[in-house]
């Protein structure tokens, strides 16, 4: 058991941290306030290889590990959770399924531009009537001989309008339920593919969350991702990886809030001494730090399992569950330590507290994480 980063991971962490402090942090509050998708930042990150970290260089990636990717999302999210989820949804939910399930032609056509960051990706599974219950899909794809005809809609799609390449799930055989879902690669601009409303959200307000609408979209046969009717498996495996990204985002939010609180309590004086001199403050920070560190270990372990190529679904669920609860708890505590100032937008903890909540909801709610964990426990007699 070795808890040390490799030199490469450490180097990557340092460079992402430097980029985040110099480029992302200065605009984080502004893009939240304006609910503005940071297109210019996405372009900068693309140039540096942040949008294809875990993919081989032959497919346009940076040739690093999943751990490196997760560390990058964590660092970015310390300053801006919106930018963190842009990278996470793009990498885990759009590029990864093509890398894992795509044909060589699909990888050449779609993975390379995604991994180089020339194009941005998104993932569409959720529908108004099909959230946690993915089998309730209304979107359908009919086999019309030389193409599939796609009709329906998706909601809450991260990177929505700003993406170029979409992984979309649709029913290809309704009678089979989960076993009748297939995955498709769609491109922005396909006739009949349009965008609905942009969601107004509590947090991650610089991330663009859209409704996608499909009206008689002709999807070429070669854009079927994975096997016909095996889309549910594609979605679940993709979300396992996505949960590592969201775990990292949540962890980053917690660390960002913790760092802000740590600095604040050392400076802010009440009753003639810094807040840090009060045992109440010290105990709170000790709890926050312990939560962060234990969540981090769980997350890193789950990612390392993925890098080793062994099953990691349960560990990913535990990591996301813990990291997102840590984000909620630590940001709440941070706001409390800041007092009235913490409730204002003058300090970042207000934004971080709003940003934290979504991590308990998207890419599988905390309840779904517990279902996944129970699914594992149901198969064993002891741990």
């Amino acid at each position, binding site marked *: 058991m070795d808890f040390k980063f490799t030199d490469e991971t450490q180097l*990557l962490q340092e*460079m992402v941290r*430097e980029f985040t402090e110099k480029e992302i942090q200065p605009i984080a509050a502004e893009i939240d306030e304006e609910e503005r998708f940071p297109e210019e930042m996405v372009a900068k990150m693309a140039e*540096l290889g942040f949008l294809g970290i875990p993919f081989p260089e032959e497919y346009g990636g*940076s*040739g690093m590990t999943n751990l490196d990717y997760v560390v990058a999302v964590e660092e970015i999210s310390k300053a801006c959770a919106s930018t963190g989820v842009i990278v996470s949804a793009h990498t885990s939910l759009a590029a990864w399924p093509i890398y894992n399930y795509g044909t060589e032609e699909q990888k050449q056509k779609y993975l390379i531009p995604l991994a180089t960051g020339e194009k941005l990706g998104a993932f569409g599974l959720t529908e108004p009537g099909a959230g946690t219950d993915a089998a309730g899909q209304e979107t359908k794809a009919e086999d019309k001989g030389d193409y599939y005809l796609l009709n329906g809609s998706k909601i809450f799609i991260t990177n929505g309008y700003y993406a170029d390449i979409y992984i979309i799930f649709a029913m290809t055989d309704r009678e089979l339920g989960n076993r009748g879902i297939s995955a498709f690669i769609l491109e922005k601009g396909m006739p009949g593919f349009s965008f609905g409303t942009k969601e107004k959200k509590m947090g991650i307000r610089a991330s663009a969350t859209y409704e996608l609408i499909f009206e008689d979209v002709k999807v070429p046969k070669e854009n079927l991702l994975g096997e016909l009717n095996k889309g549910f498996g594609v979605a679940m495996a993709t979300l396992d990886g996505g949960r590592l990204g969201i775990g990292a985002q949540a962890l980053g939010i917690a660390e960002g809030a913790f760092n802000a609180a740590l600095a604040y309590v050392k400076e802010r004086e009440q009753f003639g001494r810094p807040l840090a001199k009060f045992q109440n403050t010290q105990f709170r920070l000790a709890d926050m730090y312990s939560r962060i560190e234990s969540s981090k270990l769980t997350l890193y372990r789950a990612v390392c399992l993925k890098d080793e190529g062994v099953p990691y679904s349960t560990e990913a669920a535990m990591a996301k569950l813990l990291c997102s609860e840590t984000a909620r708890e630590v940001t709440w505590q941070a706001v409390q330590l800041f007092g009235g100032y913490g409730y204002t937008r003058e300090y970042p903890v207000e934004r971080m507290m709003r940003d934290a909540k979504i991590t308990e909801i998207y890419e599988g709610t905390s309840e779904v994480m517990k279902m996944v964990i129970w699914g594992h426990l149901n198969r064993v007699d002891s741990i």
Partner: protein
Amino acid sequence: MNILVCVKQVPDTTEIKIDPVKKTLIRTGVPSILNTYDAYALEQALQLKDKDPDNVKIVVASMGPQQAESILRDCLAVGAESAYLITDRKFGGSDTYATSYILSQSVAKIVEQEGSFDMIFCGKQAIDGDTAQVGPQLGEHLGLHQITYAINISLNEEKNKALITRELDEGKVVVEAQLPVLVTFTKTDDLRFASIKNKMKSKRAEIKEINYDDLAGIDDTKIGLNGSPTRVVKSFTPDVKTDGIIIREDNPDEAFEKFAAELEKVKLY
């Protein structure tokens, strides 16, 4: 077009704190970085390379201990082609004069490998010593013309002259210089970040070393502590000075009257 950029590893002065009691620098835990002005010099070289990637080659060199390798790797990561570390125990304790002498001797050695240089870029000064002497001294040792405090450089079409904008207290001056030339740079454009791929590649890149033994004919009396004509006698935190005033009048009498009025304001006259 060959450009040599001379760089130095320095403590990150933005991270340095002063011991409130002893009034000395707290050096422990202070990270080492590429001297900021050298980074600007490199950025200017990189911009020339951006414009003409096939014909511009950037070589970086640093004199310092073994750990200075890390800043050379930083330079390679953003686009320098090759890097030289000039290091030897015999060079330790060198002041600016000895340093610039050793650098000038090393340049001859680097030229053997890389071909002659059309331009040598330096930062205007290091953020630790703040002397602003090594660049100009190197120019003198090599017999090059030198342009200091530059913020921008471009080349003419024939690529034999450089157009350089200098930033001085009184304003900006644009000068033309025949190549080869040595230029020292002050704060210019924003610095670029290395991509992940290049950063990782630079970690594995070769750093060529130049030691005392490689420099045949070097004058031992001009290197190291013993070869240094200057000594640091004392370091202290200076009193804070307020901004000065420049009085400009065509008529000297009027200028003097204004000057006297200023002195009167502070009760010195």
